[in-house]
């Protein structure tokens, strides 16, 4: 996988983020275009390309979520567009409460605060299970684990959008 290659890493899901960072800095320095100011135009171009790839690689691999997304795509898994069905009901109710709060109905606030807490907890759970799946997969690459990762990512993205939305509303309305 290109991004792993760029940083000289084995294609593993579980990575040490300090190590990723260090590799990125070292290699960026090594390929920095300033060091190629007197080089041939071919080499110059190569240094620019490498710098660009390193930037993309670092951005994708430093964070477990974007890393897993990249990994899945590279493994030929189309990231699904389906919302997690088991959450929809709750999401809908949450949106109702948000609408009430926007309309000035303060009685919706406790419900939102409780939901906020629950969803934040779900994010933490998702991160924990991702870490676990990563190790499992690295030890024994199994397609079923990739599917689990896929589902977790999907759910995580959905929930994190929600958390952001609720946070925004709760803040806006407590401000005035």
């Amino acid at each position, binding site marked *: 996988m290109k991004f792993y290659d760029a940083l000289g890493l084995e294609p593993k899901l579980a990575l040490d983020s300090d190590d990723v960072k260090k590799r990125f800095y070292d290699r960026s320095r090594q390929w920095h275009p300033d060091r190629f100011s007197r080089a041939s135009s071919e080499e110059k171009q190569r240094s620019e390309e490498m710098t660009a790839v390193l930037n993309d690689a670092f951005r994708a691999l430093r964070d477990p979520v974007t890393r897993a997304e990249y990994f899945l795509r590279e493994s030929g898994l189309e990231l699904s*567009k389906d*919302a997690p069905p088991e959450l929809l*009901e709750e999401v809908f109710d949450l949106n109702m409460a948000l609408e009430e709060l926007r309309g000035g109905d303060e009685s919706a606030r406790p419900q939102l605060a409780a939901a906020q807490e629950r969803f934040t907890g779900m994010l933490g759970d998702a991160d924990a299970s991702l870490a676990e799946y990563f190790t499992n997969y690295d030890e024994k690459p199994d397609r079923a684990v990739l599917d689990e990762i896929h589902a977790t990512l999907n759910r995580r993205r959905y929930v994190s*959008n929600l958390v952001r939305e609720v946070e925004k509303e709760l803040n806006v309305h407590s401000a005035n």
Partner: protein
Amino acid sequence: MAYSDKVLDHYNNPRNVGSFDKSDPNVGTGMVGAPECGDVMKLQVKVNPATGVIEDAKFKTFGCGSAIASSSLATEWLRGKTVDEALAIKNTDIVNELSLPPVKIHCSVLAEDAIKAAIDDYKKKTEKVETSVQAQA
């Protein structure tokens, strides 16, 4: 982004907003969501069990203007259709009617999915009733 007049019309005057009691055996409920934008849509049909005709449809959508317009339009189209006719509604019909731009196509897909889910739910309910009737007999 510029919305078409038809989208604006549905957005400003959404038709059939509301809900039915989802435990009603003649009501089918479809709940769908789009993870990229976090939008959710609930669409319900009330079917006349004798004729299989959708007598009424309601929706509530939390989402962008196109999603609201798509679901509003869908409820209009659903009224008076049989369950099977309803399943023939395609998101492309919605796209054409509302002149949705390519980036908003997924919003119409959401509406099509909601229709399918609602009909599905209704069909499941009627099957259940039939099997329990048979079981009693």
